[in-house]
């Protein structure tokens, strides 16, 4: 049997069987049966750690040594939800200081940013610690987002922290900062929407709409092909499609972009939606799209836009053709 493996820090790993404090425990091997499938060639360290874990789990031993054991097990496989679950039971039974648990999680997170168990555990700890931990949680997610600005788990955790524990004060400027770094960061746009909709410090989507539309239009002008900002603009209006269709200024944004670039797909697509919501540009506006043809009704315009999209957004030709085929049917 392999004895002693150097771990990352250069310390020799001492097998549990050689640790005097574990001498009273009989390890429990994994029951894979005589003809196992998908069997993993575990290292002896992995196997032995799990054998001892199974032993304490079977005894439901909620002790300090169990806690240390789960730490070792999690470092080897952070995806083992049974180990995490048992760790929570032990932490609770022993009344451990959960602030210290945050360091452990941060340590595991260094190599496991995208792990459901870790983030769930973090949420459990933060919930127990309450509002006092909110700034620390925001800082922790910022740390993760600094290296992976679209980390799904980090964003979900951050949203949960804001909703459950608060800390909204700087959230809108945090979104703005990330968007300034990368205007294409759709996660940051999504977060912005979340803040506008839910922050108790702001007056909600409806009253923020005007200033957000302005912010968004600026973003569109900076990067007209960025789908994120166009979709955000649409999102600001929710079910209020009438206001959207009635807004001359938003319609003009589409025409402005199309005047600059006749193939601007998001602008063509957005304009199509606007027309479906009742937007009525002038005949002269439509000349911007194509000076050689005369578009005289909103149906003609919608048909034209679908046909353009079938060409310039050819990968989605099926989708656009389908949109076109529906138009005559939804006319009232």
């Amino acid at each position, binding site marked *: 049997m392999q004895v002693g493996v150097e771990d990352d820090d250069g310390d020799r790993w001492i097998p549990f069987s050689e640790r005097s404090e574990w001498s009273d425990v009989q390890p429990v091997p994994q029951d894979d049966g005589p003809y196992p*499938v998908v069997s993993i060639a*575990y290292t002896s360290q992995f196997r032995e750690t799990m054998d001892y874990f199974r032993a304490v789990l079977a005894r439901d031993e909620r002790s300090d040594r169990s806690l240390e054991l789960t730490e070792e097990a999690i470092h080897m496989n952070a995806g083992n*939800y049974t180990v995490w679950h048992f760790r929570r039971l032990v932490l609770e039974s022993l009344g451990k200081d959960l602030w210290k648990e945050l360091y452990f999680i941060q340590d595991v997170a260094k190599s496991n940013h995208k792990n*459901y168990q870790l983030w769930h555990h973090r949420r459990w700890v933060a919930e127990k610690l309450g509002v006092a931990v909110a700034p620390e949680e925001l800082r922790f997610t910022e740390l993760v987002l600094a290296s992976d600005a679209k980390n799904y788990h980090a964003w979900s955790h951050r949203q949960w922290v804001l909703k459950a524990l608060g800390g909204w004060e700087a959230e809108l400027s945090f979104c*703005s900062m990330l968007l300034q770094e990368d205007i294409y960061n759709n996660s940051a746009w999504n977060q912005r929407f979340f803040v506008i909709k839910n922050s108790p410090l702001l007056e909600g989507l409806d009253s923020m709409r005007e200033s957000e539309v302005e912010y968004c239009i600026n973003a569109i002008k900076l990067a007209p092909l960025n789908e994120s900002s166009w979709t955000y603009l649409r999102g600001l209006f929710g079910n209020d499609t009438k206001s959207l269709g009635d807004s001359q200024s938003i319609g003009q944004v589409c025409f402005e972009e199309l005047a600059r670039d006749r193939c601007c797909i998001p602008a063509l697509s957005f304009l199509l939606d606007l027309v479906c919501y009742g937007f009525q540009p002038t005949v002269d506006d439509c000349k911007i799209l194509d000076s050689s043809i005369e578009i*005289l009704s909103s149906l003609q315009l919608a048909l034209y836009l679908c046909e353009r999209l079938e060409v310039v957004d050819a990968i989605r030709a099926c989708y656009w053709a389908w949109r076109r085929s529906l138009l005559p049917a*939804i006319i009232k």
Partner: protein
Amino acid sequence: MAASRSSSAGKLTTTQRHQMELERKVGDMLGTFVGLGRHQRSVLLELWREEHVEFLVQKGLRRLGASYSVLDSSRPWLCYWSLHSLALLGESFNLELGDDVIEFLERCQDSGGGYGGGPGQMPHLATTYAAVCALVTLGGAKALGSINREKMLQFLTRMKDSSGGFRLHEGGEMDVRGCYTAIAVAHILGILTPTITYKVNEFVVSCQTYEGGIGGEPGAEAHGGYTFCGLAALILTNQMEGLDLPSLLKWAAKRQGKVEGGFQGRTNKLVDGCYSFWQGGIFPLIQHVIPRLVSQLPVFRNHLLHPADENDVLHMCCKVKTCLESKKTGFVHDNSINSCISGEEDEGTSEPNIQITRTRIEGKESPPIMSAETLFPLKFHGSYQNITDAQQHSTDCFSKEDEQTKHGAAQGLSTFNQDSCFVRPFFNTQALQAYVLICCQVLEGGLIDKPGKPRDFYHTCYCLSGLSTAQHPTWLQAEACPSESDVLGPSCNLLEPTHPLCNVHFERYLEARSFFNDLSL
């Protein structure tokens, strides 16, 4: 806004840089592909079956290296990924292997119901789904009979939350994955009780975002995996109310890459082979609920447009053409690539007529590169069904569907009727197949996320599942065989069809449904 025009500063953002690098890489591969001789091109478009089977059987199902320790709590998944891939490849399983899988999964089954990630681990909804699907894929009374349905129902009930969602395990997280895996399992086993279906609609609908897709939990970003899971869960429970289908379809359609042909999981993220199924699999589901989608479209009011100068109005009105009937159009895929490979008709045109596109990354004059969009164009051909007829037909389909579900889950395909209301798929199935075949295959066997990534069983499974979905766009017509033009590359590329809601081999699914229907609870 403070953001500086990133491009004018001459500096690309992280998103742009990554996207450009990938487009370059894929564009180069497609360019190389086009430049090859007919024979080599045909090899590149071939599904390397033997190699994949070898990878799955030798590497996947039996013995895995120590690096797989991080998947020690996902072993039923390892079974499912390999078995399902093999089933799609049309491989049959030898009895011995089947028995070993059954016996192993029995060791993962908890005495209180459900399956854990390995022997002795707590039951978990995701590994429960994987274990059940693996057993369905094996088929036969021994495999199916090994599942303890009564206990399973108890387990699912314990995981159910009052919000309508499901926890993934005792004390675990709650998200749309939980809903899908619980409901798919209950559907297959015929134990979809009111307790299980309670408020699933509310939970999933609360996760639909302003983008149109569905996130993992309320507020989270729209994501391909969760969108598939959420939509499938609502269709399986027949709880579609409140889900905005037009925006969901638009969001999903926009996830297909113009250059790559594959799908991205989220807006402005990179294309990844596994979304071939998670995103590509959304379209067959939507095709099934088109009548509801159409009913959600805004009423279109046709206005006369005015000239900027109001005095011209009267004059203009006289000019308006009254006939605005749309052209009747339909699509077929341009088969120039396929035909030049088979080379039977056009000996002369081994070079398809391909135009190079300029990709459009903001502020950067990118050199022209080859794109899936230009390589696999869709041509107008034939005709769409007359839209009024289609609508009429759709309404019929829909009421029939409701009627069917009233008769309950006893019908094999209760929630999925066999009539398709719209025949053509909503996405470019050829471009998707090209991404999987050209960019995701590893010569030694196995499939990947994107060029340069290492192979793994998860991506092998979902690349193949997506490929199968793209090859069977008309699967809804029960026994309809895919036409030759649906399959990209040699016709031997054709995979077995997968069930679009549960992602298990279609016939095995039917077998399992009838097996469990015959049992009482």
